[in-house]
């Protein structure tokens, strides 16, 4: 693989966080280059979701810093991080359940629209043009994910796989540079997982995205990720190509009891 000489998209330096006395993540380093598709794996409780929460500003790190497109983003609140170009999905699906599928996606497009409260209350022309544009964009995203025919349905009424896809559509509508997917295939059957993998590859091409995903499904990670980071007890224990990770002694040790390899995913 060719490592680009240009400035990395994301540069995480010595990141750490402690909750009370507990060090949840410590001395975590990671660089992500434009256009990569990376995996973050590790046993349960290794701190994977904590890393996502740190990257997106849900937690402020107690040590180290996060540089995104050359600017420090650690310490910013989540909504500002999103506006800088990082958006995410959640492990336990956090859709706006009572809202329509369409509105879910429209909300993500909110920070990119410009019409003011004043304009909306007085129903000025900018309100109508912007709202129309939001609607068209949102429908566009739904089409890619095969959800456009369900746009008026409440999000909570979608089947499980549909909810997962809607969450990714919503994250994409924020027009991120870096997309973080937290176990996107969790709970999906093999067919749905396969379709999801294809979809991830497709959106990455289409939107020129950089993607970091957490996944338990080894087959998915090994199959599509170009580089993999392995986390255990809040620390990075290995990183490299899928082939290297598969044979890495520390990874095998960390997963002792869990099978590593595509045959037993």
């Amino acid at each position, binding site marked *: 693989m060719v490592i680009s000489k240009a400035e990395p998209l994301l540069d995480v330096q010595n990141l750490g966080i402690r909750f009370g006395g507990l060090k949840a993540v410590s001395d975590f380093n990671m660089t992500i280059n434009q256009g990569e598709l990376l995996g973050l794996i590790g046993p349960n409780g290794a701190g994977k979701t904590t890393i996502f929460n740190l990257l997106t500003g849900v937690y402020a790190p107690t040590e180290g810093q996060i540089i995104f497109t050359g600017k420090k983003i650690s310490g910013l609140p989540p*909504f500002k991080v999103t506006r800088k170009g990082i958006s995410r999905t959640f492990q336990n699906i956090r859709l706006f359940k009572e809202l329509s599928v369409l509105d879910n996606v429209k909300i993500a497009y909110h920070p990119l629209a410009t019409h003011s409260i004043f304009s909306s209350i007085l129903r000025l022309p900018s309100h109508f043009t912007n709202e129309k544009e939001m609607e068209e964009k949102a429908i566009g995203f739904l089409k890619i994910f095969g959800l456009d025919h369900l746009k008026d349905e409440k999000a909570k009424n979608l089947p499980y796989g549909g909810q997962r896809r809607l969450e990714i559509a919503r994250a994409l509508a924020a027009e991120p540079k870096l997309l973080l997917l937290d176990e996107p295939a969790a709970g999906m059957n093999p067919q749905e997982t396969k379709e999801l993998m294809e979809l991830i590859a497709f959106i990455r091409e289409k939107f020129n995205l950089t993607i970091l995903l957490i996944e338990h499904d080894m087959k998915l990670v090994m199959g599509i990720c170009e580089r993999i980071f392995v986390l255990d007890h809040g620390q990075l224990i290995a990183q490299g190509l899928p082939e290297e990770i598969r044979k890495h002694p520390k990874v095998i040790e960390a997963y002792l009891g869990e099978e590593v390899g595509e045959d037993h995913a």
Partner: protein
Amino acid sequence: MKKSKSFFLMFGLAVVIYAVIQFLLYNGILNPFYENTLITILINIMLAVSLHLVIGITGQFSIGHAGFLAIGAYIAAIFTMKLQMPFIVALIAAGLAAAIAGLIVGIPSLRLRGDYLAIATLGFAEIIRIVFLNWDFVGGARGMMITRMTDWTIAFICTILTILVIANFTNSRHGRACISIREDEIAADAMGINTTYYKVIAFVLGSFFAGIAGGLYSHNFYIIQPGNFGFLKSFDILIFVVLGGLGSMSGAVISAILLTIISTFLQEYSETRMIIYSLVLIIVMLYRPQGLMGTKEITQLFQKKKSFKGGKQYGHFES
């Protein structure tokens, strides 16, 4: 366009309602007692709709709305009685003063969630009441004498404006941002929505209209006293919103109308009224916690429900 069509429909409906009632009042078919009841209904609609924005749309559980009503009531009274300003100026001042109070109360307390926010807003409302109680300029506990200025026309115009502004706000990206906070604050934040900003905006906008309602309220009586704005008043407003259905503006309007009529008829039996009120509240919360309308609007009831098949067949697998 679909949206603007329903707008003109509503506007036409408002004009018709106004014309009919004005005609009945003019010809003396409706006597002053009914005019008074109508004004009370309209003020209560304004209060219900403004609180609906805070609780129903943004999901911020405020139980101190009477505090903003009090500020509007007193500020408007000071403007007309002490400063000899026109009533309309007083109403605008009442709204602005309440909005500023909403900003001051909202910025610190909207960091709190759920029960804690509720209690904090109740505390602020009590502090506001106690300030008026101790302020001799407005008569302290004895209250303040006021010339009656509110009439049915101005109340109607204010109510329509309140509904229009809050409906327009709700049906825009700003309203959706507020609803997303109600649905899931963490996800809203992750979607780039400045949750604090929108919570405060909803609170300020809600307080503004509560303030105007306060101006109408105080000038609908000959005297106002701090005792009119205790937390029982806050609960009254809360009940409109909750019984109407959290998240439904038409629900809030309908329950404000119905409950005001019921209370007017039970005015002489105030204990009975409160017993019925509280029983209804408990029974609705136990058996229909989503209220009369749920999150639906009355217009949606007439639309044909589109059926959606796939949803229920799929199981929900937990990972």
